[in-house]
């Protein structure tokens, strides 16, 4: 192996340049939003768009405190609650789905049923249709059971949505493990529970992190069910964001951009924290040790 292939940063200028250009194209919409969040209303609507402007934090302030048009006094918005809702609902449901999914995946991987693949396929079919087709039955079920508008309702729904994905992904991580290690632990006196928690789980932490982040991103951005099934108290940020669009004085793009920018931060933070695990997780099994 020559040195060229081993050293990071030795790909050469041309490759680096092309890669950063492609990266920039992908990132440009996000960059646009972030820039807009620092613009005044006039700057935000300027044609051609301004790349250089005097930044302002007014938009961020008005995410949480907005002056009422009728009275002119500053009023707290409920945005803080919505952010809490988004974090709480997405975090809990993805966490629950991961726990249930991991247990199911272990069973599917290690104790296959007769017709194991059929069950796995059935689990996956729930993700094959666009969610909107089941919106009416689900809405009716929620109304009847009294779950509509409650935290538990939306959390259970999101958990149910995330489980198939978790089962499939986590199963593939379990499949990659060397079953000899589990056998060895059994020979060495470990109980089945100990085999699972002490030896299987630590080996797939990277995979679990990746599954968690993917699930979190999907759930975090979910709009349709949140719109229909959350109440005033349990509203999530995407729904709240949509509601600012229909304001009394037209669309306040600066405000919207500020909410989006704040909305990006938690996901960005989680992904950043788990990035090493994530990289190992998504490449799990692609390279044989």
């Amino acid at each position, binding site marked *: 192996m020559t040195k060229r292939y081993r050293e990071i940063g030795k790909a050469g200028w041309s490759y680096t340049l092309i890669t950063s250009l492609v990266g920039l194209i992908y990132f440009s919409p996000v960059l646009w939003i972030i820039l807009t969040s620092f613009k005044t209303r006039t700057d935000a609507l300027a044609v051609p768009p301004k790349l250089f402007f005097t930044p302002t934090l007014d938009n961020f302030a008005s995410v949480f405190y907005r002056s009422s048009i009728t009275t002119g006094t500053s009023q707290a918005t409920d945005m803080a609650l919505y952010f809490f809702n988004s974090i709480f609902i997405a975090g809990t449901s993805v966490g629950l789905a991961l726990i249930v999914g991991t247990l199911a995946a272990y069973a599917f991987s290690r104790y296959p049923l007769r017709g194991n693949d059929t069950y796995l396929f059935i689990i996956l079919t729930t993700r094959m249709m666009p969610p909107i087709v089941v919106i009416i039955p689900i809405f009716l079920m929620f109304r009847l059971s009294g779950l509509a508008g409650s935290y538990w309702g939306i959390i259970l729904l999101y958990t149910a949505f995330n489980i198939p994905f978790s089962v499939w992904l986590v199963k593939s991580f379990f499949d990659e493990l060397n079953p*000899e*290690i589990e*056998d*060895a*632990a*059994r*020979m*060495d*006196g470990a109980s089945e529970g100990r085999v699972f928690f002490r030896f299987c789980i*630590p080996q797939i932490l990277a995979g679990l992190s990746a599954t968690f982040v993917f699930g979190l991103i999907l759930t975090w951005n979910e709009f349709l069910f949140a719109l229909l099934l959350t109440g005033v108290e349990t509203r999530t940020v995407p729904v709240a964001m949509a509601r600012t669009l229909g304001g009394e004085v037209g669309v306040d793009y600066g405000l919207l951009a500020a909410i989006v920018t704040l909305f990006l931060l938690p996901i960005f933070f989680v992904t950043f924290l788990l990035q090493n695990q994530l990289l190992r997780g998504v490449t799990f099994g692609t390279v044989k040790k």
Partner: protein
Amino acid sequence: MTIELKNLTKRFGDLTAVDTVNFDVGDGEVLCLLGPSGCGKTTTLRMIAGLEYATEGDVFLNSKRVNELAPRDRNVAMSFQFYALYPSLTVAENLAFPLYAEGLSSSEIEARVQKISDTLQLGGILKRTPGQLAEGEKQRVAVGRSIIRDPTCFLFDEPLSRLDVQLREEMRGEIKEVLQDLSRPTVIVTHDQLEALTMADRIAVMRDGRVEQVDTPHNVFQKPTNLFVAGFIGTPQMNLVPATLSELKGAGKAEFAVKGGQSMTIEVDPRIQELSVGTNVTLGVRPRNLEISQEKSQDGLSTTIDMVEPMGAETLIHLNDGHQDLRLVTDWRVSLSEGQQVNTSFPPGVTHVFTDDEKVLRTS
């Protein structure tokens, strides 16, 4: 302490992986399960360990039937083909792990880990994790972890298959030494006959789930009971020549006709008298027993050298007369060249006769 298998059978659906296997291993004895891949040797081992349940038949450990016991209740130590070291634990913790289950005090555990690490020279790597070890070191740790307890028996699944040739030879000696000190019944699974021949007290040769022969390494090599064992054991492989019995000459002497019109009169087992003239048999002779003679002799075939393979101290010669292949091993100093005409000779008593049902003809 003993291991005893009685009519042990394992079926996976329609596939019979292990078919009525019977053998027993005595205290301090090392038995090698030898056979080609997929012959059921690992499954047999896993049934002794309790990792697979027997479909039929029984496993006795210390004369106690253990069929229904879980692995951890059988007190059996096993080392795995891919070492199966616990990746999140250090070497010391790996070694100590089987002891936790036994509920030993931490000072006792420490003392045992120390003792094993002295025996296997693991002192320098106790704090490392398995990911940081070389293959040979992993193998040592795996062996260490299986011998740290005081189990009823030891099981080794392909202990040396992942090592390179030099290390393999080194570890073979080391494991043999360790096993001698342990004096517990031990079963080693291997597909490498050299490993089996060197390490085992007895070898069980397996094919398609059945045990073909259980015997000492010497007897498995010198007195194969059937065609499969004869062909499987020994490198280079035994010459197997299809022939027809054409005349019985008494005192174990008989004339055989082979393909291509040649015939030879050789001395084989006296039980050849039981066969009638015209019977088809297979003659088996080891390449090292076959000799080259100057002139055409009654007890051999004339043929042509097809290929010469120097193997260091010896030379392997492939012979072909257009009808059958023969392999012959001679001293490296004998000068032979490809295309040369030679005469072979089958010395008395080295040729095995296998009948149609693949069984050997032998006065036991």
